[in-house]
């Protein structure tokens, strides 16, 4: 049996209730002084006058509720003994004896008794009693039908359920069930199920949702409260830039501005001309860059260092864009109005060249199954090939524009591509439906979020628009750039919800054409520029070392935040 033994000196016992008692403001009548814990005193419920007992520094948490929620959590986690012990030690039962009796009667199927016990639970208004009775009697009805006691079920229906005079439509549905058992399944009641014990537990769950929470504590209430707190911390974290798994209950979550990459860690000089496109692989281990010099380079990422792995030469024209295969083992490169080449990442070998006679290809992408690739053409159509080069499908007409952005959803069903200077076309391959996102300005590029629900659209007027494409198309946010009179040479980082500028990173000596976040390391950013270099950005090491204080409920205002 767990727990501390009774003959141990009191000082070794865990002083459970001390904080609770110290914060109590009313007067106490006790037979023993509070701070000495001897014998059974801890187990006796403390009588108090003048209000309920509170816990916590702000005195807003009622002790009885707090203990009951913990008790419930213990039972949910399967710690029956601990739960019972807590009820005993604290003197605070999880359920009143009436409610315990009620629950037991429901589990035992003593329907009529449970309905009458229901009436004895205080704090219930008539409607709730009726609704709860309805639920119980309905279950009784279904159990009778399950045992083929049709006339008994009918009697229950007529003499017990109907007189409640609530929920007539449900009553009629139950009537139909008498003659057609198939109706029961459509109502969500498998006759098989009602005969198992699990169904009575489900009934208790339904009843608990109906009754006020003071009577029966909702399931997983403690977990829910903790999740709420974590959510608040997340939302308050202005510079949040870490993986959610980094959240811990031991200290408040708080990203400082130092969690945003702000320092150039490396400058990569390998390209001989403007760098037009960058993309990290899905697993964050590689970075691919595409350049006007006609080559693409695969870089290997090793912690925070990036090193050249392969130079992919072969294109006769500038490389517009690259696309990593879903498993990162291969990569597609697209030459400007030229061909698409497929390469093996490990060896750097070119495995296949995809082309279409008489047409130039301007964009490329993979299907999520990794077995098919697609490409936009200079004649504005889209073509799909199997890996071996066999052409599978072709969508003709005004599908693309001479801009290389294309995207495909994870399920392979939606294809997004530019179809006018100011519009993006979303093709649903299965439903054969096309939708359009229209902007007031020319679109320069777009990218699809990982969960395929959002689309980030860059406009020529320096605005970036965030669209939701899940369900109805709707514009959710606009991020406005700074007014500039000269060409922009900085990398900008925005807060997604507040649309505020978090960071501006100078360093490039030419226009910044592309950026890519490392999907696996949120502290690594790469940018490519007309100055032919690629810059790798990371956290500011100096600031990091200063951050070793642990926060526990202290609210901080970030520099440069609001």
């Amino acid at each position: 049996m767990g727990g501390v033994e009774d003959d141990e000196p009191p000082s070794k016992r865990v002083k459970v209730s001390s904080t609770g008692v110290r914060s109590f403001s009313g007067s106490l009548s006790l037979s023993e002084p509070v701070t000495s814990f001897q014998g059974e005193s801890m187990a006796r419920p403390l009588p108090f006058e003048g209000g309920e007992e509170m816990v916590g520094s702000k005195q807003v948490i009622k002790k009885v509720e707090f203990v009951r929620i913990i008790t419930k959590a213990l039972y949910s986690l399967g710690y029956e003994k601990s739960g019972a012990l807590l009820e005993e030690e604290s003197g605070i039962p999880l359920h009143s004896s009436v409610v315990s009796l009620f629950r037991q009667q429901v589990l035992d199927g003593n329907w009529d008794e449970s309905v009458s016990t229901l009436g004895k639970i205080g704090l219930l208004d008539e409607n709730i009693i009726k609704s709860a009775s309805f639920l119980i009697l309905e279950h009784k009805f279904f159990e009778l039908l399950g045992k083929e006691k049709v006339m008994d079920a009918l009697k229950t229906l007529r003499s017990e359920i109907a007189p409640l005079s609530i929920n007539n439509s449900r009553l009629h549905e139950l009537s139909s069930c008498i003659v057609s058992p198939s109706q029961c399944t459509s109502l969500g009641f498998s006759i098989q199920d009602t005969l198992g014990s699990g169904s009575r537990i489900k009934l208790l769950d339904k009843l608990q949702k109906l009754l006020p929470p003071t009577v029966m504590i909702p399931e997983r209430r403690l977990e829910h409260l903790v999740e709420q707190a974590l959510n608040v911390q997340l939302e308050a974290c202005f510079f949040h830039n870490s993986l959610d798994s980094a959240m811990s209950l031991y200290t408040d979550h708080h990203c400082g501005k130092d969690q945003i990459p702000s320092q150039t860690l490396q400058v990569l000089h390998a390209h001989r001309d403007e760098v037009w496109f960058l993309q990290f692989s899905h697993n964050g281990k590689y970075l691919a860059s595409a350049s006007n010099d006609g080559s693409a380079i695969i870089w290997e990422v090793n912690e925070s260092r990036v090193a050249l792995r392969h130079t992919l030469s072969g294109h006769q024209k500038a490389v517009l864009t690259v696309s990593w295969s879903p498993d990162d083992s291969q990569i597609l490169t697209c030459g400007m109005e030229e061909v698409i080449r497929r390469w093996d990442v490990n060896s750097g070998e070119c495995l296949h060249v995809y082309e279409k006679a008489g047409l130039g290809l301007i964009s490329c992408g993979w299907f999520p199954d990794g077995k098919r690739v697609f490409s936009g053409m200079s004649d504005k159509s889209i073509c799909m090939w199997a890996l071996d080069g066999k052409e599978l499908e072709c969508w003709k007409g005004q599908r693309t524009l001479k801009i290389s952005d294309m995207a495909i959803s994870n399920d392979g069903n939606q294809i997004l591509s530019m179809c006018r200077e100011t519009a993006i076309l979303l093709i649903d391959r299965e439903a054969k439906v096309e939708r359009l996102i229209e902007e007031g300005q020319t679109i320069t590029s777009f990218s699809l979020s990982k969960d395929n629900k959002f689309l980030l659209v860059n406009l020529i007027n320096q605005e970036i628009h965030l669209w939701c494409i899940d369900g109805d198309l709707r514009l959710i946010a606009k991020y406005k750039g700074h007014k500039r009179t000269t060409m922009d040479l900085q990398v900008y980082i925005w807060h997604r919800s507040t649309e505020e500028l978090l960071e501006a990173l100078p360093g490039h000596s030419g226009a910044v054409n592309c950026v890519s976040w490392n999907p696996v390391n949120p502290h690594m950013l790469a940018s490519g520029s007309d100055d032919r270099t690629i810059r790798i950005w990371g956290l500011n090491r100096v600031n990091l070392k200063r951050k070793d204080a642990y926060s526990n409920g202290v609210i901080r205002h970030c520099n440069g935040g609001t």
Partner: protein
Amino acid sequence: MMMDIDTDPPPRQFDQVAINDNDVRNIVLSYLVHNCFKETAESFIACTGMKQPADFPVGIDKRKPIFHFALEGNALKAIELTEQLAHNLLEENKDLHFDLLGLHFVELVCSRKCTEALEFAQNKLTPFGKVHKYVEKLEDFMALLAYEEPEKSPMFHLLTQEYRQHVADSLNRAILAHANQPSYSAMERLIQQATLVRQCLHQDFGKDGAPFCLKAFLKS
């Protein structure tokens, strides 16, 4: 501009329409025969010296008992006689068949014979439930079982005389149609048409006055 037909001073337009008394008598007789008023019809024929209609009184003699059984809720008897009179009529009119069976079910429920009602429903009514359009109606009937006082239930209209009249009328029409006779009496058709015409006139030309109402017209 059309004048108000009823209240305008003479001479009114319709006064010029000639009426043949024979036509009127035929209209009246058609009504009496359709609704199985056998004695009244015989009396009327005798008084006016009209010619008897072709199948008089055989047709009425066959239809009248069926009509009345249905009207009093004795649906099983009505069904039996209908089968004798017009063999596959009910098979060809499934809706009607269902309504008649429903009548019997309602009788059982009203006489508080629940077990019988349930059995009858299971055997005769639920087979219809396989077809979608009967499902809702079936639910309405079944709902009656839930109430110890079905007259006080939301479905009480199924217990009324009006409902029985409606079913009996439908049966009557079906039998007439089956015998290649008009299923609506001339009287009904004329009233329907007149009402419709009056309503159209009111819509197109009427002033602010109330639209045509037959009841009001008859009282005036």
